[in-house]
């Protein structure tokens, strides 16, 4: 080479490149074509084989929990919706139901049913979005385009019901903000038939299309024992044969009257995740039909007092990605004293990195996204250090010290 052999201490990037060891480091993110949100995974490779995955989280930390303490309870609903650009309704109903439990509001039955319908619509749209992305990540853009085109139908329904496609601003304390439109039932039932037809087709497609099935069968397998050890949530857990679903175990909204048929698969690989999520979409379609048949009449909202009595409550819902957890604490003031959120991606991240070890590099996008990551939801102040295999959460004071120390080092 004409440029000669560069000295190793020139920079860290160059040094790693010129070492002729069998192991090499490859950055995956924070800016990478297959990551739609910034997150950094340091991959230690031996050839194409992954030896170690070290995630570093926190690139989209927005201080939402702190911001929530500055706002009123009602404003917080709309703030928390902004945590996730996909499952925003799960966040808002988790928060509102937690606060309703805290202040012992009784929500009208009709509102519970409407919440169920919108939550299931969101599940369908989230799972379809993921299916499309799996196609994209596996290099199958045609699937991506097709699925996302069909997903538009669900978003249109969401717009017809709530007025918005994604950030619905629909749930509120004591019910929902407006009633279902008069003509929505026929539209919903017709669209559910359409979605069912398409999803059955995609289910068959992804299992019979050879180039896709060789990329998903037996890839990213997680055993039941490992799942018990690493505590993933949602579809990732259910794909290993552990049928846990908050909707069935601790019903909220109208799930006690319209129970889900909890889907589970036993292989624990990407193929079973695909089939599991398609099964969940079909089940959601069924639940929306049942809910629309049983939809009670009556008010969709009860007026509630502005302040929330002192106390605390923890609430969890089954978001499309798994169990979403909210802890809210009130001191009887107009804004919450503390809200703690644990999103499903946080719980699934370690499992996903475990699934990657020993796999070829080509499997990184498809395995990493098997958990349907939502890094924007996840990023809050918690630190995982796989180098020292340690995990901890900063307290406020520690974080402040760390921040001061960090910037001092930069200066």
């Amino acid at each position, binding site marked *: *080479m*004409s*440029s000669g052999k*560069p000295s190793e201490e020139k*920079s860290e990037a*160059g040094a*790693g*490149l*010129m070492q002729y060891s069998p192991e*090499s*480091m*490859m*950055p995956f993110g924070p800016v*990478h*074509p*297959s990551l739609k949100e910034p997150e950094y995974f340091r991959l230690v*490779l031996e*050839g*194409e084989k992954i030896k170690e995955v070290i995630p570093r989280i926190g690139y989209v930390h927005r201080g939402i929990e702190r911001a929530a303490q500055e706002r009123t309870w009602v404003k917080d609903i709309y703030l928390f919706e902004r945590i996730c650009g996909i499952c925003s309704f799960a966040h808002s109903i988790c928060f509102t139901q937690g606060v309703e439990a805290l202040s012992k509001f009784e929500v009208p039955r009709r509102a519970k049913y409407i919440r169920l319908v919108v939550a299931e619509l969101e599940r369908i749209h989230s799972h379809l979005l993921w299916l499309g992305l799996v*196609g*994209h*990540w*596996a*290099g*199958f*853009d*045609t*699937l*991506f*385009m*097709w699925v996302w*085109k069909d997903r538009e139908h669900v978003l249109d329904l969401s717009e017809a019901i709530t007025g918005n496609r994604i950030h619905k601003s629909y749930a509120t304390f004591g019910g929902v903000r407006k009633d279902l439109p008069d003509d929505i039932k026929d539209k919903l039932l017709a669209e559910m038939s359409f979605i069912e037809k398409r999803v059955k087709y995609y289910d068959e497609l992804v299992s019979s*299309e050879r*180039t*896709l099935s*060789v*990329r998903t069968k037996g890839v990213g397998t997680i055993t039941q024992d490992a799942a018990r050890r690493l505590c993933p949530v949602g579809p990732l857990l259910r794909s290993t044969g552990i049928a846990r679903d908050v909707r069935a175990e601790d019903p909220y909204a109208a799930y006690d009257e319209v129970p889900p048929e909890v889907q589970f698969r036993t292989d624990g690989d990407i193929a079973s995740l695909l089939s599991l999520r398609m099964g969940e979409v079909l089940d959601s379609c069924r639940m929306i039909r049942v809910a629309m048949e049983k939809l009670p009449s009556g008010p969709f909202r009860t007026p509630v007092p502005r302040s929330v009595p002192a106390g605390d409550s923890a609430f969890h819902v089954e978001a499309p990605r798994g169990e979403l957890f909210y802890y809210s604490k009130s001191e009887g003031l107009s804004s919450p004293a503390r809200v703690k959120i644990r999103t499903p991606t946080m719980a699934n991240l370690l499992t996903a990195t475990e699934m990657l070890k020993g796999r*070829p*590099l*080509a*499997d*990184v*996008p498809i395995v990493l996204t098997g958990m349907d990551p939502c890094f924007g939801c996840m990023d809050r102040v918690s630190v995982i250090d796989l180098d020292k295999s340690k995990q901890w959460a900063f307290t406020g004071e520690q974080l402040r010290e760390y921040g001061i120390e960090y910037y001092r080092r930069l200066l």
Partner: protein
Amino acid sequence: MNALEVFELLVFPGLTFFVWLAFVFEWLERKTAARMQGRLGPVVTGPFGLLQPVADFFKLASKEEIIPEYADTFVLRWGPALYFAAPAVGVAFIPVLGFQSILYQPLDLLVMFFLLSFSTLMAAMLGYASAGRYSTIAVGRLVVQYSSYEVPLLLSMITPAVLAGDISIQGVVAAQGSLWYIFLAPAAFAVFIVSALAELEKPPFDIPSAKTEIVGGWMTEFSGNTLAYVKLTKNLSYVFLSALAVSLFLGGPSGPVIFGNSSAQAAIYGVYFLVKLFAVGFLIFAIRTALARVRIDQAAKLFWTVITPISLAQLAVAIVIR
């Protein structure tokens, strides 16, 4: 070499003609993929968006070029030109307006073998010279993939030569007459198309440039002018391989000629050639759109355990027929 020959070589039906075909191929690829995926594809620039690839090329060429700190600047400066040269020279051996190609040589099929290998070699050199992590991994994949598909690709190209008893493209085209070799050796044609997908890094064999895994593959570190030419070269290779398929399996420009003097005949031959070329191109676009990407180990296994035996069997059959 007189002025007419220089014109033929550089303008029509030589380099310029094929470069424009490369732009049209990119347009057709984008349009086919878009229509299959329920989209519109390019519509803004030119009629039906036909000029979009040209606009993209000039826009990219006018961008700032960033050369990585550790890159081998000598290779990065001169490599793209050599990389471009491989298909640019190759197309001059394709008969377009009749059975005579511009740079006819009695053994020119061997030159094709060389050019196909050379093109991959240059890609590997460019990838290594740009000294990025993604490029390095991509070149590893490129070389593994190349060593897998080279044997079936060459075997499938030898099969028509065996059937024709002549190792020049012109000879193969002339020997086909009314019975194209796609009918005599369908498996060889299929193997050629599959290997061409691998050579062109198109799905399901876009492994060395897998966007969601290794960003831009071996082209990650390229920008501006260099990237514009590298992309143009890939499109030109597209045309080159399709033109090879037309010449070796679809009778080249041959077809029923009803009337006319020599220039009218040439025009009709040219039309036949273009129709066949776009048919082959369309076949590749359709396969490319309908499949997902496989892993490099799966691709190597597929080529060595399935496609190479098929091409060997086809060659044996061809020898027996002959």
